[in-house]
């Protein structure tokens, strides 16, 4: 699900860099579900949250929730675990005000 093979050029050339060639957009899987499903305007950022040296998939969304899908160890294309709430220091779900 993560990787596509049909390459096409999405971008024009850069003066100081060879023309980047990007593949087709592919949905990202998080555990058994597609990442961001059921949320609104998921905003991803890669960050090693658990300190295992692998960048995890962190998702914010319009409602202010923040989840972490831990990158699973192993060779090959990156695989991510299910979306789990990022917890605050008091153990509650970290949720930002949206409004």
């Amino acid at each position: 699900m993560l990787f596509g093979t049909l390459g096409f050029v999405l971008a024009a050339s850069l003066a100081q860099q060879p023309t980047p060639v990007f593949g087709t957009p592919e949905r990202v899987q998080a555990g058994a579900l597609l990442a961001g499903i059921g949320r609104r305007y998921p905003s991803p950022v890669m960050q090693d949250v658990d300190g295992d040296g692998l960048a995890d998939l962190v998702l914010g969304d319009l409602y202010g929730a923040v989840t972490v899908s831990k990158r699973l160890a192993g060779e090959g294309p990156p695989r991510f675990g299910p979306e789990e709430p990022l917890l605050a220091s008091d153990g509650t779900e970290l949720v930002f005000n949206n409004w």
Partner: protein
Amino acid sequence: MSPQFVDFDADGQLDLLAGSFGGAPYIARGSAKGFGAPEYLRDSKGERLGLNMYWDHDEGHWTTATKWNEPGQKPPEGQGTSVFAVDWDADGDLDVLLGDYSAGRIYLRTNEGTAKEPRLSTFNVPIRHAGQPLVVPGNVATVRVVQWDGDGLFDLLVGSVGHGDDGAVYVYRNIGKVGAPDFDAPFVLLAPASAPLTDVSRPSHGLYPDLCDLDGDGDLDLLVGGSTNLNLPERELSVAEKEQYLTQRNRRDAAKEATAALRAEIDAAVKDLPEEEAKLRRKALEREFAPRFRDGARRRAMAEISLAAITFEPKQYHAVFVVLNESKR
């Protein structure tokens, strides 16, 4: 929202910055125990940050302000829904960029304090190009700072909202100097959709990008979330689909009623108080009730109805995509 993990106050702990649709950036301060509750990111006078339109939590409505305008300037009405911290002027502390959801500008709040004691300036200075404020086509869903071309200068990665279905991802290459950024014309990383979408093949509205080397081949890949606005004919639901949809809708309605009950509780507590006292008491109660408003079960119920809506009434499909950089293949 577009979170950023960054040690904003140089205390050795990562903090979490996030924008909000209400127009205020927030910070959850990190400590050895984890993140604290999100709070306003504030300027040197202790005021929340914002552009010139925002949601007023005290009054409970949208409002406009000119007090944060650059002196002598009258910017278009802007809604600051994204935030990113970066050492813009290379003086060793973090400044803040605010992305404008409604007019497409990017504003700077300079840190006039130190790395350990940030004091953000009290007005918004637009990032300029060739003497004019830089304006992102389709306005700003989020802005991030990246190292795109490895020239030692940071570049800007911007996801646009889009007017309808033409959201896109742009890179603005920094062609200035260290401490004095200037930017080239935008480089299109993910172009606007060329036609109305009939499948979930890419996001088309409200694009939130990040760049990272996902496949470990030494170049930057694009990760992008957002909405795919679908152009599909309506269809009749099956009996089973209707049943599932109604079940989820009922749970959503129950969650809404729980929220309304909390609001009613606050209303009842302040209704007999004098106006100013009522305002303060309301604010205090909203803070006290915040964990209940943010209750995870309620959020999940709201998410479920969104899931049902995209399953049975597909109009907007919110998703995360990866677009691999295949230049080295």
